[in-house]
């Protein structure tokens, strides 16, 4: 691999890790928010 190939691989890996983590956070937040809304709707009428 050329010099530029390694440079591209380094930066691409770093950005892939960052965006991958952001995607994971967004997915988990969305899922938790849905479960939280669900569970709080069950509690709310009695509260």
């Amino acid at each position, binding site marked *: 691999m050329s*010099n*530029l190939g390694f*440079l591209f*691989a*380094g930066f691409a890996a*770093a950005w892939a890790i960052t965006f991958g983590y952001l995607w994971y*956070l967004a997915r988990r*937040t969305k899922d938790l928010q849905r479960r939280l809304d669900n569970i709080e709707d069950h509690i709310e009428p009695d509260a």
Partner: protein
Amino acid sequence: MSADQADTRSSGGIDSLGTLVPIGFLAALIALWAAFLYAPTERIEGNVQRILYMHVPAAMTMYVAYSLVFLASVMYLTRRDSRWDELAAASAEVGTVFATTVLITGPIWAKKAWGTYWVWDARLTTTLLLWLIFCAYLMLRTYGGAGEHVARYCAVVGIIGFADLPIIHYSVQWWRTLHPEPKVMTQGSMGGGMETSMFLALALGTVAALMLFAVLLRLRLRLERMERRLEVAGQLLRSEG
């Protein structure tokens, strides 16, 4: 809807991060410009040396994140306030993202600079050890269940993990290693071993990485609070039904 519920439901979007996201985005663009266009090409290594502007800021941010874990863990053990535990949990996870970046960009650069992806050099080995300690920390968080005892164990693991940071930092001075000695923070001066334009590009990269850390930490903290809220709501529902 109660005030608590309103708070949780309104915290679903990225809008609560305010100006941090656009400023961070701008900082990342400036850092990329500095790394690729402003900093000169290194004479011996050539363009591959520009990985430095991603690798070193990630390493510095990893130091900051794990130092925050240490601080929050000590505070949790002394005050027993769950907010410190939340901060430690969030910072450990985000710190591990940066540690992973360090451990991947480093070997890519090393392949070109040293001719090999990995050597069991003191700096590389102690960094891998740190990553493994915090992987264990995150596994304990995930599979340890709920309860104060897990938070206490995690605080202890977080403090043990932090003890590896000075070993990583001084490993290049204490042992003969393939990894170069620090050029950014040399004794008595900042950037003493680097050309000014390279040092400035590195400084801009570090600012951008720290801003990214701040954004990720806030997002992860919000998630941690939602998880704990869900746990409490679930307990409440079980006790009612």
